[in-house]
Protein backbone atom coordinates (compact mmCIF):
# COMPACT_ATOMS: atom_id res chain seq x y z
CA UNK A 1 0.00 0.00 0.00
CA UNK A 2 1.26 3.42 -0.89
CA UNK A 3 2.41 5.65 1.92
CA UNK A 4 0.66 8.82 2.89
CA UNK A 5 1.58 11.91 0.93
CA UNK A 6 4.15 14.06 2.73
CA UNK A 7 4.99 17.72 2.24
CA UNK A 8 8.71 17.89 1.60
CA UNK A 9 11.40 20.10 0.14
CA UNK A 10 12.99 18.69 -2.98
CA UNK A 11 16.35 18.45 -1.25
CA UNK A 12 14.87 16.46 1.62
CA UNK A 13 12.87 14.21 -0.66
CA UNK A 14 16.03 13.36 -2.61
CA UNK A 15 17.75 12.48 0.67
CA UNK A 16 14.91 10.33 1.92
CA UNK A 17 14.60 8.55 -1.44
CA UNK A 18 18.34 7.81 -1.40
CA UNK A 19 18.08 6.35 2.10
CA UNK A 20 15.15 4.19 1.04
CA UNK A 21 17.11 3.07 -2.02
CA UNK A 22 19.67 1.65 0.38
CA UNK A 23 22.33 4.34 0.18
CA UNK A 24 25.12 3.06 2.46
CA UNK A 25 27.34 6.10 2.39
CA UNK A 26 26.92 9.80 1.73
CA UNK A 27 29.76 12.29 1.36
CA UNK A 28 29.21 15.99 0.83
CA UNK A 29 30.43 19.52 1.28
CA UNK A 30 28.13 22.46 2.10
CA UNK A 31 26.93 24.60 -0.80
CA UNK A 32 23.72 26.53 -1.40
CA UNK A 33 21.08 25.67 -2.62
CA UNK A 34 21.47 22.00 -1.66
CA UNK A 35 22.35 22.34 2.03
CA UNK A 36 19.12 20.77 3.26
CA UNK A 37 20.11 17.56 1.49
CA UNK A 38 23.46 17.31 3.28
CA UNK A 39 21.82 18.15 6.61
CA UNK A 40 19.10 15.56 6.01
CA UNK A 41 21.68 12.89 5.26
CA UNK A 42 23.73 13.86 8.33
CA UNK A 43 20.70 13.40 10.52
CA UNK A 44 19.29 10.19 9.13
CA UNK A 45 22.34 8.32 7.85
CA UNK A 46 24.16 8.49 11.18
CA UNK A 47 21.02 7.59 13.12
CA UNK A 48 20.58 4.47 11.02
CA UNK A 49 24.21 3.40 11.41
CA UNK A 50 25.21 4.30 7.87
CA UNK A 51 28.15 6.37 6.70
CA UNK A 52 27.98 10.17 6.55
CA UNK A 53 31.02 12.39 6.19
CA UNK A 54 31.15 16.14 5.73
CA UNK A 55 34.23 16.08 3.55
CA UNK A 56 37.02 18.64 3.34
CA UNK A 57 36.04 19.48 -0.24
CA UNK A 58 33.82 18.38 -3.09
CA UNK A 59 36.91 16.85 -4.66
CA UNK A 60 37.49 14.66 -1.61
CA UNK A 61 33.78 13.89 -1.25
CA UNK A 62 33.69 12.48 -4.79
CA UNK A 63 36.77 10.35 -4.19
CA UNK A 64 35.18 9.06 -0.97
CA UNK A 65 32.16 8.06 -3.05
CA UNK A 66 34.54 6.39 -5.49
CA UNK A 67 36.22 4.47 -2.67
CA UNK A 68 32.99 3.45 -0.94
CA UNK A 69 31.44 2.28 -4.21
CA UNK A 70 34.65 0.50 -5.24
CA UNK A 71 34.38 -1.38 -1.94
CA UNK A 72 30.84 -2.46 -2.80
CA UNK A 73 28.68 0.20 -1.15
CA UNK A 74 25.80 2.23 -2.50
CA UNK A 75 27.38 5.65 -2.35
CA UNK A 76 26.21 9.14 -3.15
CA UNK A 77 27.25 12.76 -3.11
CA UNK A 78 25.41 15.98 -3.82
CA UNK A 79 26.38 19.53 -4.54
CA UNK A 80 25.53 22.54 -6.64
CA UNK A 81 27.17 23.78 -9.82
CA UNK A 82 30.57 25.12 -8.61
CA UNK A 83 30.95 22.07 -6.40
CA UNK A 84 29.98 19.73 -9.21
CA UNK A 85 32.77 21.23 -11.31
CA UNK A 86 35.17 20.05 -8.59
CA UNK A 87 33.62 16.59 -8.60
CA UNK A 88 34.32 16.13 -12.29
CA UNK A 89 37.75 14.68 -11.51
CA UNK A 90 36.25 11.83 -9.51
CA UNK A 91 33.35 11.40 -11.94
CA UNK A 92 35.80 10.85 -14.80
CA UNK A 93 37.68 8.27 -12.72
CA UNK A 94 34.43 6.57 -11.74
CA UNK A 95 33.44 6.38 -15.40
CA UNK A 96 36.88 5.03 -16.30
CA UNK A 97 36.75 2.41 -13.55
CA UNK A 98 33.06 1.58 -14.21
CA UNK A 99 32.04 2.46 -10.67
CA UNK A 100 28.33 2.86 -9.92
CA UNK A 101 27.35 5.82 -7.78
CA UNK A 102 24.86 8.68 -7.60
CA UNK A 103 25.74 12.36 -7.97
CA UNK A 104 23.08 15.03 -7.39
CA UNK A 105 23.49 18.52 -8.83
CA UNK A 106 21.01 21.05 -7.43
CA UNK A 107 22.16 23.51 -10.05
CA UNK A 108 22.56 27.26 -9.64
CA UNK A 109 23.56 30.05 -11.96
CA UNK A 110 27.12 30.47 -13.20
CA UNK A 111 29.73 30.90 -14.48
CA UNK A 112 32.17 31.19 -11.60
CA UNK A 113 30.63 31.75 -8.24
CA UNK A 114 27.63 33.14 -10.12
CA UNK A 115 24.49 33.24 -8.01
CA UNK A 116 22.46 30.88 -5.89
CA UNK A 117 19.27 31.07 -7.95
CA UNK A 118 18.03 28.17 -10.09
CA UNK A 119 19.59 27.71 -13.53
CA UNK A 120 20.18 25.12 -16.25
CA UNK A 121 23.63 26.22 -17.35
CA UNK A 122 25.19 22.88 -16.39
CA UNK A 123 23.57 20.91 -19.24
CA UNK A 124 26.73 20.72 -21.32
CA UNK A 125 28.87 19.72 -18.34
CA UNK A 126 26.38 17.06 -17.28
CA UNK A 127 25.62 15.48 -20.64
CA UNK A 128 28.98 15.67 -22.38
CA UNK A 129 31.04 13.90 -19.74
CA UNK A 130 32.05 16.91 -17.67
CA UNK A 131 35.58 15.77 -16.91
CA UNK A 132 38.47 14.64 -19.09
CA UNK A 133 38.35 11.72 -21.49
CA UNK A 134 35.86 9.89 -23.68
CA UNK A 135 32.82 9.02 -21.62
CA UNK A 136 29.20 9.70 -20.80
CA UNK A 137 27.00 8.85 -17.87
CA UNK A 138 23.26 8.74 -17.31
CA UNK A 139 21.70 12.12 -16.47
CA UNK A 140 18.14 12.33 -15.17
CA UNK A 141 16.26 15.63 -14.84
CA UNK A 142 13.28 15.76 -12.47
CA UNK A 143 10.50 18.32 -12.88
CA UNK A 144 8.97 18.03 -9.42
CA UNK A 145 9.67 16.97 -5.86
CA UNK A 146 7.92 13.65 -6.55
CA UNK A 147 10.01 12.98 -9.61
CA UNK A 148 13.20 14.06 -7.81
CA UNK A 149 12.48 11.38 -5.21
CA UNK A 150 11.50 8.75 -7.79
CA UNK A 151 14.51 9.32 -10.05
CA UNK A 152 16.96 9.37 -7.12
CA UNK A 153 15.48 6.12 -5.84
CA UNK A 154 15.84 4.53 -9.23
CA UNK A 155 19.31 5.96 -9.85
CA UNK A 156 21.08 3.53 -7.52
CA UNK A 157 19.81 0.48 -9.37
CA UNK A 158 20.52 2.06 -12.76
CA UNK A 159 24.06 2.90 -11.67
CA UNK A 160 24.64 -0.71 -10.65
CA UNK A 161 23.05 -2.18 -13.73
CA UNK A 162 25.08 -0.05 -16.12
CA UNK A 163 28.22 0.30 -13.97
CA UNK A 164 28.45 4.09 -14.11
CA UNK A 165 27.67 7.23 -12.13
CA UNK A 166 24.10 8.42 -12.52
CA UNK A 167 23.59 12.15 -12.17
CA UNK A 168 20.38 13.75 -10.97
CA UNK A 169 20.33 17.21 -12.55
CA UNK A 170 17.88 19.30 -10.56
CA UNK A 171 18.01 23.01 -9.90
CA UNK A 172 17.63 25.37 -6.97
CA UNK A 173 13.88 25.61 -7.43
CA UNK A 174 13.33 21.86 -7.33
CA UNK A 175 15.68 21.62 -4.35
CA UNK A 176 14.06 24.43 -2.41
CA UNK A 177 10.38 24.11 -3.21
CA UNK A 178 7.94 22.01 -1.23
CA UNK A 179 5.42 19.71 -2.81
CA UNK A 180 3.46 16.67 -1.81
CA UNK A 181 5.39 13.46 -2.31
CA UNK A 182 4.61 9.79 -1.89
CA UNK A 183 7.87 8.08 -1.08
CA UNK A 184 8.80 4.66 -2.41
CA UNK A 185 9.19 1.78 0.03
CA UNK A 186 12.64 0.98 1.36
CA UNK A 187 14.44 -1.56 -0.82
CA UNK A 188 15.17 -5.01 0.48
CA UNK A 189 18.94 -5.04 1.15
CA UNK A 190 19.02 -8.67 0.03
CA UNK A 191 17.67 -7.77 -3.40
CA UNK A 192 20.82 -5.98 -4.49
CA UNK A 193 22.81 -7.24 -7.42
CA UNK A 194 26.16 -8.88 -6.65
CA UNK A 195 29.29 -6.85 -7.23
CA UNK A 196 31.82 -9.57 -8.03
CA UNK A 197 34.22 -6.90 -9.29
CA UNK A 198 34.48 -4.86 -6.11
CA UNK A 199 37.35 -4.56 -3.66
CA UNK A 200 37.01 -6.45 -0.40
CA UNK A 201 35.08 -9.50 0.70
CA UNK A 202 37.52 -11.93 -0.87
CA UNK A 203 37.59 -14.17 2.19
CA UNK A 204 36.12 -17.57 1.46
CA UNK A 205 35.89 -16.91 -2.28
CA UNK A 206 38.20 -18.69 -4.67
CA UNK A 207 38.84 -15.64 -6.78
CA UNK A 208 41.81 -13.67 -8.01
CA UNK A 209 42.49 -10.26 -6.49
CA UNK A 210 40.18 -7.55 -7.80
CA UNK A 211 41.73 -4.33 -9.04
CA UNK A 212 39.39 -1.39 -9.38
CA UNK A 213 41.19 1.05 -11.64
CA UNK A 214 40.83 3.34 -14.63
CA UNK A 215 44.52 3.09 -15.48
CA UNK A 216 45.36 1.34 -18.76
CA UNK A 217 48.67 2.55 -20.15
CA UNK A 218 48.59 0.41 -23.29
CA UNK A 219 46.82 2.47 -26.00
CA UNK A 220 45.25 -0.54 -27.71
CA UNK A 221 44.04 -1.88 -24.37
CA UNK A 222 42.59 1.47 -23.39
CA UNK A 223 40.92 1.86 -26.76
CA UNK A 224 39.30 -1.56 -26.41
CA UNK A 225 38.08 -0.64 -22.96
CA UNK A 226 36.59 2.68 -24.12
CA UNK A 227 34.99 1.03 -27.14
CA UNK A 228 33.38 -1.62 -24.96
CA UNK A 229 31.98 1.16 -22.80
CA UNK A 230 30.57 2.94 -25.87
CA UNK A 231 28.85 -0.28 -26.95
CA UNK A 232 27.24 -0.30 -23.53
CA UNK A 233 26.15 3.32 -24.15
CA UNK A 234 24.27 2.15 -27.24
CA UNK A 235 22.37 -0.40 -25.17
CA UNK A 236 21.54 2.21 -22.55
CA UNK A 237 20.22 4.53 -25.27
CA UNK A 238 18.02 1.74 -26.57
CA UNK A 239 16.68 0.79 -23.15
CA UNK A 240 16.74 3.81 -20.89
CA UNK A 241 15.89 6.87 -22.97
CA UNK A 242 13.01 8.61 -21.30
CA UNK A 243 10.77 11.57 -22.06
CA UNK A 244 7.29 12.95 -21.49
CA UNK A 245 5.19 14.18 -24.40
CA UNK A 246 2.11 16.35 -23.94
CA UNK A 247 -0.25 17.21 -26.81
CA UNK A 248 2.50 16.72 -29.38
CA UNK A 249 0.30 15.09 -32.02
CA UNK A 250 -2.26 17.91 -32.16
CA UNK A 251 0.10 20.85 -31.86
CA UNK A 252 2.19 22.20 -34.71
CA UNK A 253 4.61 23.93 -32.37
CA UNK A 254 6.22 21.83 -29.63
CA UNK A 255 7.98 23.39 -26.67
CA UNK A 256 11.08 21.38 -25.69
CA UNK A 257 12.18 21.83 -22.09
CA UNK A 258 13.35 19.85 -19.06
CA UNK A 259 13.06 20.25 -15.30
CA UNK A 260 11.77 23.56 -14.00
CA UNK A 261 11.62 25.09 -17.48
CA UNK A 262 9.25 22.29 -18.52
CA UNK A 263 6.89 23.22 -15.68
CA UNK A 264 6.85 26.79 -16.93
CA UNK A 265 6.19 25.56 -20.46
CA UNK A 266 3.30 23.43 -19.25
CA UNK A 267 1.81 26.58 -17.74
CA UNK A 268 2.24 28.38 -21.05
CA UNK A 269 0.57 25.49 -22.88
CA UNK A 270 -2.41 25.58 -20.52
CA UNK A 271 -2.71 29.35 -20.96
CA UNK A 272 -2.50 28.92 -24.73
CA UNK A 273 -5.26 26.31 -24.67
CA UNK A 274 -7.56 28.81 -22.98
CA UNK A 275 -6.99 31.08 -25.96
CA UNK A 276 -7.64 28.23 -28.39
CA UNK A 277 -3.98 27.76 -29.34
CA UNK A 278 -2.63 24.21 -29.38
CA UNK A 279 0.95 23.89 -28.13
CA UNK A 280 2.83 20.70 -27.29
CA UNK A 281 5.50 19.88 -24.75
CA UNK A 282 8.37 17.48 -25.25
CA UNK A 283 10.24 16.96 -21.99
CA UNK A 284 13.42 14.88 -21.95
CA UNK A 285 13.67 13.07 -18.59
CA UNK A 286 16.91 11.34 -19.46
CA UNK A 287 19.15 14.15 -20.69
CA UNK A 288 21.71 11.47 -21.45
CA UNK A 289 20.78 9.35 -23.27
CA UNK A 290 18.92 12.12 -25.08
CA UNK A 291 15.56 11.13 -26.63
CA UNK A 292 16.67 12.06 -30.12
CA UNK A 293 14.74 9.42 -32.04
CA UNK A 294 11.37 10.63 -30.81
CA UNK A 295 12.27 14.23 -31.62
CA UNK A 296 13.33 13.15 -35.09
CA UNK A 297 10.02 11.37 -35.56
CA UNK A 298 8.12 14.51 -34.58
CA UNK A 299 10.29 16.59 -36.92
CA UNK A 300 9.51 14.21 -39.77
CA UNK A 301 5.84 14.70 -38.99
CA UNK A 302 6.35 18.39 -39.77
CA UNK A 303 6.48 19.77 -36.24
CA UNK A 304 8.38 22.88 -35.29
CA UNK A 305 10.18 23.29 -32.01
CA UNK A 306 10.77 26.01 -29.47
CA UNK A 307 13.40 25.01 -26.92
CA UNK A 308 13.05 26.80 -23.60
CA UNK A 309 15.90 26.73 -21.10
CA UNK A 310 17.19 28.54 -18.05
CA UNK A 311 20.44 29.16 -19.91
CA UNK A 312 21.63 30.85 -23.07
CA UNK A 313 20.90 27.67 -25.01
CA UNK A 314 22.56 24.32 -24.36
CA UNK A 315 20.01 21.53 -24.80
CA UNK A 316 18.85 23.32 -27.96
CA UNK A 317 22.01 21.98 -29.61
CA UNK A 318 20.87 18.41 -28.93
CA UNK A 319 17.42 19.27 -30.24
CA UNK A 320 18.95 20.64 -33.44
CA UNK A 321 21.20 17.59 -33.80
CA UNK A 322 18.20 15.32 -33.29
CA UNK A 323 16.08 16.92 -36.01
CA UNK A 324 18.99 17.70 -38.33
CA UNK A 325 18.31 16.44 -41.83
CA UNK A 326 14.89 15.09 -41.01
CA UNK A 327 12.85 17.62 -42.93
CA UNK A 328 13.39 17.11 -46.61
CA UNK A 329 17.12 17.05 -46.03
CA UNK A 330 17.02 20.50 -44.48
CA UNK A 331 17.41 21.44 -40.86
CA UNK A 332 14.02 21.55 -39.18
CA UNK A 333 13.20 24.87 -37.59
CA UNK A 334 14.23 24.96 -33.97
CA UNK A 335 13.80 28.23 -32.12
CA UNK A 336 15.19 29.04 -28.73
CA UNK A 337 14.07 31.12 -25.79
CA UNK A 338 16.00 31.30 -22.58
CA UNK A 339 16.67 33.30 -19.46
CA UNK A 340 19.86 32.90 -17.45
CA UNK A 341 21.64 34.13 -14.36
CA UNK A 342 19.02 32.62 -12.09
CA UNK A 343 16.04 34.26 -13.81
CA UNK A 344 13.28 31.76 -14.44
CA UNK A 345 11.31 32.43 -17.62
CA UNK A 346 7.67 33.26 -16.96
CA UNK A 347 4.72 31.48 -18.55
CA UNK A 348 3.73 34.79 -20.07
CA UNK A 349 6.97 35.39 -21.92
CA UNK A 350 7.18 31.79 -23.11
CA UNK A 351 3.63 32.06 -24.41
CA UNK A 352 4.41 35.35 -26.14
CA UNK A 353 7.41 33.78 -27.86
CA UNK A 354 5.37 30.74 -28.91
CA UNK A 355 2.66 33.01 -30.35
CA UNK A 356 5.24 34.97 -32.31
CA UNK A 357 6.47 31.75 -33.90
CA UNK A 358 2.97 30.44 -34.57
CA UNK A 359 2.01 33.76 -36.19
CA UNK A 360 5.09 33.57 -38.35
CA UNK A 361 4.29 29.97 -39.27
CA UNK A 362 0.77 30.99 -40.24
CA UNK A 363 2.17 33.78 -42.36
CA UNK A 364 4.34 31.11 -44.02
CA UNK A 365 7.40 33.24 -43.62
CA UNK A 366 8.70 31.45 -40.59
CA UNK A 367 12.44 31.75 -40.17
CA UNK A 368 14.29 31.20 -36.93
CA UNK A 369 15.21 34.62 -35.64
CA UNK A 370 17.93 35.88 -33.42
CA UNK A 371 17.50 38.29 -30.57
CA UNK A 372 19.04 39.06 -27.23
CA UNK A 373 17.41 36.11 -25.53
CA UNK A 374 17.04 34.01 -28.65
CA UNK A 375 19.53 31.89 -30.45
Amino acid at each position, binding site marked *: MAEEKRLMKGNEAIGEAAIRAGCD*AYFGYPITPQNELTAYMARYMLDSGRVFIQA*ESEIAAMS*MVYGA*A*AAGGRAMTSSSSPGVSLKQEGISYACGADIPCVVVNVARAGPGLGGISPAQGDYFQSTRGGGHGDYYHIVLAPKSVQEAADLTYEAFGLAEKWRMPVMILADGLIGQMMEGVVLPAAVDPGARPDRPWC*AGGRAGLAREANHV*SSCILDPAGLEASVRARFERYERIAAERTRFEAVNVEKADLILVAYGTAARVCLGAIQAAAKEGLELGLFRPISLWPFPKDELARLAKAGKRFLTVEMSMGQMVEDVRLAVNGTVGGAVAAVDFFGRCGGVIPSEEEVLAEAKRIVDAMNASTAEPRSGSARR
Partner: protein
Amino acid sequence: MEVVYGHPKSLKPIQTKYCPGCGHGAIHRLIAEAVDELGVQDRAIIMNPVGCSIWADLYFDFDSVQVPHGRTPAGATGVKRMRPDHLVICYQGDGDLAAIGTAEIVHAANRGEKFTTIFVNNAIYGMTGGQMAPTTLVGQKATTAPHGRDPDGAGMGYPIRVSEMLATLGGTKYIARGSVDSAINVRKTKHYIKRAFEAQLRGIGFTMVEILSPCPTNWQMSPPQAADWVASDMIPFYRLGEIKNELVEGGGA
Protein backbone atom coordinates in the same frame (compact mmCIF):
# COMPACT_ATOMS: atom_id res chain seq x y z
CA MET B 1 62.90 -28.23 7.74
CA GLU B 2 61.39 -24.86 8.51
CA VAL B 3 61.47 -22.18 5.83
CA VAL B 4 62.68 -18.97 7.48
CA TYR B 5 62.91 -16.78 4.40
CA GLY B 6 60.87 -17.02 1.22
CA HIS B 7 58.64 -15.11 -1.15
CA PRO B 8 55.67 -13.54 0.67
CA LYS B 9 52.35 -15.08 -0.32
CA SER B 10 50.79 -11.63 -0.72
CA LEU B 11 53.37 -10.60 -3.30
CA LYS B 12 53.04 -12.06 -6.77
CA PRO B 13 56.15 -13.92 -7.95
CA ILE B 14 56.94 -11.50 -10.77
CA GLN B 15 59.74 -9.01 -11.35
CA THR B 16 58.78 -5.39 -10.69
CA LYS B 17 59.16 -2.55 -13.17
CA TYR B 18 60.84 -0.38 -10.56
CA CYS B 19 64.34 0.92 -11.31
CA PRO B 20 67.42 -0.75 -9.80
CA GLY B 21 67.96 0.55 -6.28
CA CYS B 22 64.41 1.95 -5.97
CA GLY B 23 62.89 1.59 -2.51
CA HIS B 24 59.39 0.63 -3.64
CA GLY B 25 60.30 -3.04 -4.13
CA ALA B 26 61.64 -3.41 -0.58
CA ILE B 27 58.66 -1.51 0.85
CA HIS B 28 56.22 -3.71 -1.09
CA ARG B 29 57.90 -6.74 0.38
CA LEU B 30 57.68 -5.40 3.94
CA ILE B 31 53.96 -4.73 3.48
CA ALA B 32 53.38 -8.19 2.01
CA GLU B 33 55.29 -9.85 4.86
CA ALA B 34 53.29 -7.96 7.46
CA VAL B 35 50.00 -8.86 5.73
CA ASP B 36 51.01 -12.52 5.62
CA GLU B 37 52.15 -12.58 9.23
CA LEU B 38 48.81 -11.07 10.31
CA GLY B 39 46.98 -13.59 8.12
CA VAL B 40 44.81 -10.96 6.39
CA GLN B 41 45.64 -11.42 2.71
CA ASP B 42 42.00 -12.14 1.90
CA ARG B 43 40.83 -8.97 3.61
CA ALA B 44 43.57 -6.56 2.64
CA ILE B 45 42.91 -3.71 0.20
CA ILE B 46 45.64 -1.45 -1.09
CA MET B 47 44.95 2.02 -2.42
CA ASN B 48 47.45 2.50 -5.19
CA PRO B 49 48.21 6.11 -5.94
CA VAL B 50 49.24 8.08 -8.98
CA GLY B 51 53.05 7.95 -9.11
CA CYS B 52 55.58 5.16 -9.68
CA SER B 53 53.65 2.92 -7.31
CA ILE B 54 50.63 3.01 -9.61
CA TRP B 55 52.00 -0.44 -10.48
CA ALA B 56 51.26 -1.72 -7.00
CA ASP B 57 48.21 -3.63 -8.24
CA LEU B 58 50.50 -5.69 -10.48
CA TYR B 59 52.51 -6.93 -7.53
CA PHE B 60 50.30 -7.32 -4.50
CA ASP B 61 48.10 -10.36 -4.49
CA PHE B 62 45.18 -8.70 -2.79
CA ASP B 63 42.40 -6.35 -3.82
CA SER B 64 43.23 -2.80 -4.85
CA VAL B 65 41.57 0.50 -5.66
CA GLN B 66 43.27 3.12 -7.80
CA VAL B 67 42.20 6.70 -7.16
CA PRO B 68 42.88 10.20 -8.53
CA HIS B 69 46.21 11.85 -7.72
CA GLY B 70 46.25 13.02 -4.11
CA ARG B 71 42.78 11.66 -3.31
CA THR B 72 44.21 8.43 -1.97
CA PRO B 73 43.22 9.19 1.66
CA ALA B 74 39.71 10.22 0.51
CA GLY B 75 39.35 7.00 -1.48
CA ALA B 76 40.74 5.01 1.45
CA THR B 77 38.19 6.72 3.69
CA GLY B 78 35.37 5.48 1.47
CA VAL B 79 36.81 1.96 1.27
CA LYS B 80 37.51 1.62 4.99
CA ARG B 81 34.14 3.02 6.04
CA MET B 82 32.43 0.43 3.85
CA ARG B 83 34.81 -2.38 4.88
CA PRO B 84 35.73 -1.64 8.50
CA ASP B 85 36.95 -5.22 9.09
CA HIS B 86 39.46 -5.06 6.22
CA LEU B 87 43.08 -3.94 6.36
CA VAL B 88 43.17 -0.83 4.18
CA ILE B 89 46.63 0.30 3.13
CA CYS B 90 46.85 3.79 1.73
CA TYR B 91 50.09 3.85 -0.26
CA GLN B 92 51.25 7.35 -1.14
CA GLY B 93 54.26 9.11 -2.53
CA ASP B 94 55.46 12.57 -1.56
CA GLY B 95 53.76 14.36 -4.46
CA ASP B 96 50.50 12.53 -3.86
CA LEU B 97 50.48 13.05 -0.10
CA ALA B 98 52.41 16.24 0.56
CA ALA B 99 51.48 18.35 -2.49
CA ILE B 100 48.28 17.68 -4.45
CA GLY B 101 46.65 15.68 -1.66
CA THR B 102 47.53 17.83 1.33
CA ALA B 103 43.92 18.58 2.20
CA GLU B 104 42.94 14.93 1.93
CA ILE B 105 45.73 13.59 4.18
CA VAL B 106 45.28 16.29 6.82
CA HIS B 107 41.54 15.73 7.11
CA ALA B 108 41.64 11.94 6.89
CA ALA B 109 44.27 11.97 9.64
CA ASN B 110 42.30 14.45 11.70
CA ARG B 111 39.09 12.40 11.39
CA GLY B 112 41.09 9.49 12.71
CA GLU B 113 40.29 7.34 9.69
CA LYS B 114 41.20 3.81 10.65
CA PHE B 115 43.46 2.91 7.75
CA THR B 116 47.24 2.87 7.51
CA THR B 117 49.10 5.29 5.30
CA ILE B 118 52.42 4.14 3.93
CA PHE B 119 54.12 7.36 2.92
CA VAL B 120 57.07 6.80 0.63
CA ASN B 121 59.31 9.85 0.83
CA ASN B 122 62.03 9.91 -1.81
CA ALA B 123 62.30 13.69 -1.91
CA ILE B 124 61.55 13.82 -5.65
CA TYR B 125 58.83 13.19 -8.24
CA GLY B 126 59.68 9.80 -9.69
CA MET B 127 57.17 8.93 -12.39
CA THR B 128 57.09 12.33 -14.08
CA GLY B 129 60.89 12.49 -14.18
CA GLY B 130 62.60 14.19 -11.28
CA GLN B 131 60.66 17.35 -10.49
CA MET B 132 60.90 19.03 -7.10
CA ALA B 133 58.73 17.50 -4.39
CA PRO B 134 57.46 19.18 -1.20
CA THR B 135 59.98 16.99 0.59
CA THR B 136 62.97 17.84 -1.66
CA LEU B 137 65.85 18.95 0.56
CA VAL B 138 67.24 22.48 0.49
CA GLY B 139 69.88 22.60 -2.22
CA GLN B 140 68.80 19.29 -3.77
CA LYS B 141 68.60 19.48 -7.56
CA ALA B 142 65.48 18.65 -9.53
CA THR B 143 64.37 19.30 -13.12
CA THR B 144 62.17 22.11 -11.79
CA ALA B 145 64.90 23.31 -9.39
CA PRO B 146 67.93 23.04 -11.67
CA HIS B 147 70.16 25.03 -9.33
CA GLY B 148 68.89 23.22 -6.30
CA ARG B 149 65.95 23.94 -4.04
CA ASP B 150 66.20 27.59 -3.00
CA PRO B 151 63.60 28.18 -0.30
CA ASP B 152 63.72 31.96 -0.03
CA GLY B 153 65.58 33.42 -3.00
CA ALA B 154 63.57 31.52 -5.61
CA GLY B 155 60.53 31.14 -3.37
CA MET B 156 60.56 27.34 -3.48
CA GLY B 157 59.74 26.91 0.18
CA TYR B 158 61.14 24.41 2.65
CA PRO B 159 60.95 20.64 2.79
CA ILE B 160 57.87 19.56 4.76
CA ARG B 161 58.20 17.17 7.68
CA VAL B 162 54.79 15.62 7.12
CA SER B 163 54.96 13.12 9.97
CA GLU B 164 55.68 15.78 12.57
CA MET B 165 52.93 17.98 11.12
CA LEU B 166 50.30 15.21 11.20
CA ALA B 167 51.39 14.16 14.68
CA THR B 168 49.85 17.38 16.01
CA LEU B 169 46.37 16.20 14.97
CA GLY B 170 44.06 14.56 17.46
CA GLY B 171 42.97 11.77 15.11
CA THR B 172 46.48 10.38 14.60
CA LYS B 173 47.41 7.53 16.95
CA TYR B 174 50.60 6.14 15.53
CA ILE B 175 53.15 7.83 13.29
CA ALA B 176 56.63 6.47 12.69
CA ARG B 177 59.37 7.21 10.21
CA GLY B 178 61.56 4.45 8.87
CA SER B 179 63.97 4.03 5.99
CA VAL B 180 64.98 1.31 3.57
CA ASP B 181 68.58 2.47 3.09
CA SER B 182 70.13 -0.26 5.25
CA ALA B 183 69.31 -3.71 6.57
CA ILE B 184 68.86 -2.46 10.09
CA ASN B 185 66.52 0.32 9.03
CA VAL B 186 64.56 -2.10 6.85
CA ARG B 187 64.03 -4.32 9.89
CA LYS B 188 62.91 -1.38 12.02
CA THR B 189 60.59 -0.18 9.27
CA LYS B 190 58.99 -3.62 9.08
CA HIS B 191 58.37 -3.41 12.80
CA TYR B 192 56.65 0.00 12.41
CA ILE B 193 54.48 -1.25 9.56
CA LYS B 194 53.37 -4.29 11.48
CA ARG B 195 52.63 -2.24 14.55
CA ALA B 196 50.53 0.18 12.48
CA PHE B 197 48.63 -2.66 10.79
CA GLU B 198 47.91 -4.32 14.12
CA ALA B 199 46.64 -1.03 15.47
CA GLN B 200 44.40 -0.64 12.43
CA LEU B 201 42.96 -4.11 12.86
CA ARG B 202 42.17 -3.18 16.46
CA GLY B 203 40.36 -0.08 15.17
CA ILE B 204 42.50 2.40 17.08
CA GLY B 205 42.68 5.40 14.72
CA PHE B 206 44.83 6.90 12.01
CA THR B 207 48.20 5.23 11.61
CA MET B 208 51.06 6.13 9.29
CA VAL B 209 54.55 4.98 8.51
CA GLU B 210 56.70 7.38 6.52
CA ILE B 211 59.54 5.60 4.76
CA LEU B 212 62.63 7.33 3.40
CA SER B 213 63.31 5.66 0.10
CA PRO B 214 66.05 6.03 -2.50
CA CYS B 215 65.37 7.12 -6.08
CA PRO B 216 68.71 6.57 -7.83
CA THR B 217 67.34 7.33 -11.29
CA ASN B 218 66.04 10.78 -10.52
CA TRP B 219 68.77 11.60 -8.03
CA GLN B 220 71.18 10.63 -10.82
CA MET B 221 73.16 8.31 -8.57
CA SER B 222 74.11 4.65 -8.51
CA PRO B 223 72.01 2.49 -6.15
CA PRO B 224 74.78 2.36 -3.48
CA GLN B 225 75.31 6.12 -3.74
CA ALA B 226 71.60 6.69 -3.37
CA ALA B 227 71.40 4.52 -0.25
CA ASP B 228 74.33 6.44 1.19
CA TRP B 229 72.65 9.76 0.40
CA VAL B 230 69.55 8.73 2.35
CA ALA B 231 71.79 8.15 5.37
CA SER B 232 73.99 11.22 4.92
CA ASP B 233 71.44 13.82 3.79
CA MET B 234 67.86 12.70 4.38
CA ILE B 235 68.00 11.06 7.78
CA PRO B 236 69.60 14.06 9.50
CA PHE B 237 66.62 16.16 8.37
CA TYR B 238 63.90 13.50 8.57
CA ARG B 239 64.48 11.98 12.00
CA LEU B 240 63.80 8.23 12.19
CA GLY B 241 61.75 6.58 14.90
CA GLU B 242 58.26 6.59 16.37
CA ILE B 243 57.10 10.19 16.19
CA LYS B 244 53.78 9.58 17.87
CA ASN B 245 52.61 6.45 19.61
CA GLU B 246 49.32 6.54 21.45
CA LEU B 247 48.58 2.89 20.89
CA VAL B 248 48.75 2.05 24.55
CA GLU B 249 47.35 4.02 27.45
CA GLY B 250 49.87 6.65 28.46
CA GLY B 251 52.13 5.78 25.50
CA GLY B 252 54.06 8.61 23.89
CA ALA B 253 56.82 9.37 21.49
